[in-house]
Each structure stands twice: as structure tokens, then as C-alpha cells.
């Protein structure tokens, strides 16, 4: 057993830390306040190779392992969870193609993402279907030599900037899971209508919108797998992406911990730094314990993925534990900062708002527990 990162992974982490420190942290507060999309950071991160980590080397990607991508995402989320959501969304959208796409689809749709800066969006959730992803209402109709999509998607990350959508729909709602199918849809296709940017509590720099598909024609060869393969591809995508989402929570939690330690040494009450008070020490100890446990779960979930071992159970542990811990840790960070913590002048209230979303997206903490129980009580 070996818990250490490779030399290369340590260098990748160093670089990502440096990027987070110089390019993300100085802008995070302002972008959050104004809801600015981090296009410059996104491009720079792409130039350095932080984006689209899931693309295999034979299609022009860097050939990163799941552990590598978790290392990167943790470091970038430390800089800003909101910006990292925008960055990560590309991987989430491209993963279905990596997992279920044909060689032609991969060449046509993955390789361009390695050659120029492009943005992709994953479209699964609908206004009426979140956790119940099997109940998708977006209809994919066979139009002879093409597919026709009709329906609405909701909470679509990066939608306003996307060059490519990966859209889930059903060929027949009565078939439930068995009818779900995935299509690669170019954003320039006719009939795609974007909603307004959502005014969110956190992750305010990431662009989230509704997307309507009105009789959108898609070439036949753009279906990932066969009609009805969509559910399996979506579930497999989530097995890959949950460690990534967990690592985002982990990065945010680590930041809250570091800030809490720093502040508790600077802030004096009753004549001593508050770090000398046991009440504060216990909170910080609890934070450290949870960060470390979340890291072990997250890295293990990614490692299992790299070994080709089914990681559904552990990925759900990682996602739920890391995001729930992040919520607790960022809330405690605000508590340690006291009145200052509640002010936007200080960085911790943003962390608390950002943490909340990670408990919700990519399968809520409650859905993760359903997955765990299903895996445990088989």
C-alpha cells in the first residue's frame, strides 16, 4: 500500500496550486459578486492543460488518470469552487463520448477540444426531473436520416458559452430507463434556445441556464451507443465524475481549513489568539479530520476507477462525504471568523455558499445514500 503521489503528480499539483493562487484567488471574490464568467482563467487553464483531462492520448489528450484529474481539480477548487465548476463541466460533458463513443465520434468531437479552446455542456437534468433522472421527458424522435430533439433542460452548466452539448432524452417515456439515449449536439444547430443566466446563491461565476430544444435535428451518427444505451452511459459517466466532484468539495474544504487556522492565530480575544481556546481548537481538529477522510475517500474512488474496478459505492461515499464535510467545514469557518465571517469582505462566507451546491449537483447527498444502500444491500 502506498499513499504517496508520484513525482509527476506532485509537480502537477504544484503547478495547479500556483495557478489557483495567482490566477483564481485574486479574482474569485469579484467574479462571485458580479457573476462574471471566468473566461480568461478558463482559457489560461486550457493552455496549461488543466481542462478536458478525460480525453485519452490517442485523441490528442494528455492521457491523465482519474487520480491525476482529481489532483488538478482539488487544487483548482481551492482557488475557487465556482470557477472549477465551469472547468469541470467540460469533462462531465465529454466523458459520455469517452465512455460510449465510437472512434469516429471521438476523433470528430474530442480531438478539436485538444486543439483549440472550446466549451461543452452536459444536459441531463430537466425542470421536472432532477434526482429522478430516469423520468426524462425530452423526446428523441427518429426523423429518418436524422434524430429530432424536443424538450427542456435545466441547470445546464456552461450553457451560455457551449460549443457542444451532450443531451439525454428518451425514445419513449414508457420505456423508462431503457428508453434513455444520448446525443452529441453542436451548439450551432437550429432550434436551440438558451434561457437567462440563473442568479445563484453560490458558484456565481459559473454560467447556469435552462436550454430548450425545439425540433433540433441531429445527424444519425451522433448518437452515443444505441438507442436506449443512454442510462448506462450516464451512470458510468457519474462513476467517473463523482470523484472529480468530490475533489472540488475537498479543495474548498481545505481552503476553509487553511483560512480558519490562519485567522485563529491572528484574532485575539480574552488576551490570546483564539487558536489558544479549546472551543476553536476542537472545531479546527474536526475540520482537519474530515478533510483528511474526504481526501482518502476521493483518491480511493479515483484510484478504483483507474484500476478498472467498479467504484460506484466508493464514489458515492466520496461525493457525499466530501460535499457534506465541505458544508460543515465552511460553516464552521464562518463561525470561527465570527461577525467578520458573515461579511463579504472576508473570503469564508463565499466558501459556505459555494459548498451548498456540491451537496446538490451530480446527485444530491440523499441520492448518494440511496446508491450506497443499493450497492450494500444487493
Amino acid at each position, binding site marked *: 500500500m502506498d499513499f504517496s503521489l508520484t*513525482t*509527476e503528480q506532485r*509537480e502537477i499539483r*504544484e*503547478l495547479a496550486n500556483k495557478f489557483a493562487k495567482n490566477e483564481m484567488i485574486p479574482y474569485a471574490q469579484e467574479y462571485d459578486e458580479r457573476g462574471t464568467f471566468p473566461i480568461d482563467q478558463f482559457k489560461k487553464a486550457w493552455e*496549461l*492543460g*488543466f481542462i478536458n483531462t478525460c480525453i485519452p492520448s490517442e485523441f490528442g489528450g*494528455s492521457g491523465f488518470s482519474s487520480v491525476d484529474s482529481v489532483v*488538478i481539480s482539488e487544487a483548482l477548487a481551492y482557488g475557487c469552487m465556482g470557477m472549477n465548476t465551469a472547468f469541470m463541466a467540460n469533462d462531465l460533458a465529454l466523458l459520455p463520448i469517452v465512455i460510449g463513443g465510437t472512434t469516429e465520434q471521438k476523433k470528430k468531437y474530442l480531438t478539436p477540444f485538444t486543439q483549440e479552446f472550446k466549451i461543452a455542456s452536459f444536459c441531463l437534468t430537466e425542470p421536472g426531473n432532477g434526482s429522478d433522472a430516469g423520468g426524462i421527458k425530452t423526446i428523441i424522435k427518429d426523423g429518418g436520416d436524422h434524430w429530432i430533439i424536443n424538450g427542456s433542460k435545466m441547470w445546464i452548466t456552461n450553457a451560455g458559452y457551449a460549443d457542444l452539448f451532450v443531451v439525454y432524452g428518451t425514445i419513449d417515456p414508457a420505456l423508462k430507463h431503457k428508453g434513455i439515449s444520448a446525443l452529441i449536439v453542436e451548439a450551432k444547430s437550429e432550434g436551440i434556445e438558451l434561457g437567462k443566466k440563473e442568479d445563484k446563491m453560490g458558484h456565481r461565476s459559473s454560467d447556469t441556464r435552462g436550454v430548450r430544444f425545439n425540433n433540433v435535428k441531429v445527424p444519425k451518427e451522433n448518437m452515443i451507443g444505441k438507442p436506449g444505451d443512454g442510462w448506462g452511459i450516464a451512470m458510468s459517466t457519474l462513476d467517473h465524475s463523482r470523484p472529480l466532484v468530490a475533489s472540488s468539495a475537498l479543495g474548498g474544504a481545505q481552503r476553509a481549513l487553511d483560512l480558519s487556522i490562519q485567522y485563529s492565530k491572528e484574532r485575539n480575544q480574552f488576551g490570546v489568539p483564539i487558536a489558544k481556546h479549546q472551543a476553536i481548537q476542537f472545531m479546527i481538529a474536526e475540520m482537519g479530520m474530515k478533510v483528511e477522510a474526504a481526501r482518502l475517500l476521493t483518491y480511493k474512488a479515483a484510484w478504483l476507477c483507474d484500476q478498472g474496478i467498479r467504484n460506484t459505492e466508493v464514489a458515492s461515499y466520496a461525493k457525499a462525504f466530501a460535499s457534506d464535510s465541505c458544508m460543515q467545514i465552511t460553516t464552521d469557518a464562518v463561525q470561527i471568523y465570527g461577525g467578520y465571517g458573515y461579511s463579504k469582505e472576508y473570503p469564508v462566507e463565499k466558501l459556505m455558499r459555494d459548498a451548498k451546491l456540491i451537496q446538490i449537483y451530480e446527485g444530491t447527498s440523499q441520492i448518494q445514500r440511496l446508491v450506497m444502500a443499493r450497492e450494500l444491500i444487493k
Partner: protein
Amino acid sequence: MNIFVCVKQVPDTETKITPTGDGSFIETASIKWIMNPYDEFAVEQALLIKQSNPAANVTVVRVGPTKDTEALRTAMAMGADDAILVETNENLDSYSIAKALKGAIAKSGKTADIILTGKQAIDDDALQVPQVLAEMLNLPSVSVIVGFEVSGNAIKVKREIEGGALEVYELGTPCVIACNKGLNTPRYASLPGIMKAKKKPMTQLSLTDVGVSDSDRRVKYSQFRLPPEKPPGKKFEATDPAKQNDVVSQVVGLLRTEAKVI
């Protein structure tokens, strides 16, 4: 064209420094090492020269322990072609380091056209190695440069002097140039760069290989100590307008006599 860049690994600026028990150096076990920031300007300048002269070869050279090769690997990930490491765990003085660098460059088998360094290392702030190295090699050198351009066979550099004025120098090659902040903006090492760096050659040499022995030591370090803690600042109460004149002259007086800043 062969460009050599001499780099040093220094403790991260956020590191908590602890002197060793015998005072000969600092505790190095838990230090996070980074490339000396001034050396990053030197690496970047070498890569900029290489960009306009693709035949140029950039070699990074470092003298220090092998345990952590961060600085050399970073330089190669940024785009340097190869690296030479002269291994030693000793805290060498500037003279020995310069001699080791000279020996390493000679051992490389390549004729140096330009040798770039940072103007100083941010740990010991000795500001000596580039000049000593140039002297040993009998080469012209300019330090604290903030501008660099190649014009024909000559190199034109700008150097900052007192009062913000610039001196302009023109030198032939080979030469030694020590870089200052403001010269350029060092690039990040990209992830593909990190992957490529793994395959780039790193030559390891010993002090003996480069002709450095104990007799080269000119400085012996014996008393590394933390600076004394700063005394707390003085507070002056001046909320009462009637007393403000007195307080101001008191502060001015102290700034003259005690702080000696005005």
C-alpha cells in the same frame, strides 16, 4: 547557440525557517523548495531567445542536493532542453558554487554563448555568483538587467540604476547576464511540459567531477540565527484636538531620533 541558465533552489517564501542546532545552516528536512524567483526570469529569457532562434539549446544547471529536483524539473517543464545537477548536501559559499557551475558547463562539452542567472538568490542574498562566475570564465557580465535584446552578434541589455534611470550596455558573446524582476513574465510550466520534462536528460555530477574541493571554500558558516523579534509598535492617543499639536511633534521627534527615518 548554447544558452546556460544557472538556477538555485530556495525555500518557499512562506517557509518557517529554523536554524540547525550547530548554527551552520537551516533545517532543510521539511522545507518546500521553489526555484529562486530571479532565476525564473533567467529561464524565461533563455526560452524567449530560443523562441526566435529554434536551433538554440537551453541547459539549466544547479548545484545542490538531489532529494528534491524541483527547480530543474520546473525549468525543463517550462521548455529548457536538458539539465545538469552538481550534487552536494553542503551549504557551499558563492566561490565554490561559481567554480562548480564553471566546471559543470565545461563538463557539458558545449561552448556557452550566453550564461543567464538571477541577479541574486532570495535566501542568502549574496549577489555574488554571477560576477564570480564571469570572472572565473574571464567573460563580460552585467547584472540587474531589466531589458534584453539581441542585435546582430551583439546583445543589448538595460540595467536599472539609482533613481530609476537605465544604463544600456552592448556586449559580445559569450557573456554572463544576471536578470532582475521586470525583465519578462515567466511562463507557467504546462502539464504537457511536465510530461515531456520526464524524458529530458538530466546529467548528475559530483563536486569532484567539477573540480571543487574543501580547499575552495572561502566562507565558513557558523552562526545562523533568527532575527530578533520586532518590538511592538507605539500607539499615540490623539483624539483630543487640544493635544494633537503635542502628539504630532512627539511623533516627528521620535521619527527623527529613534526611528531615524526622517
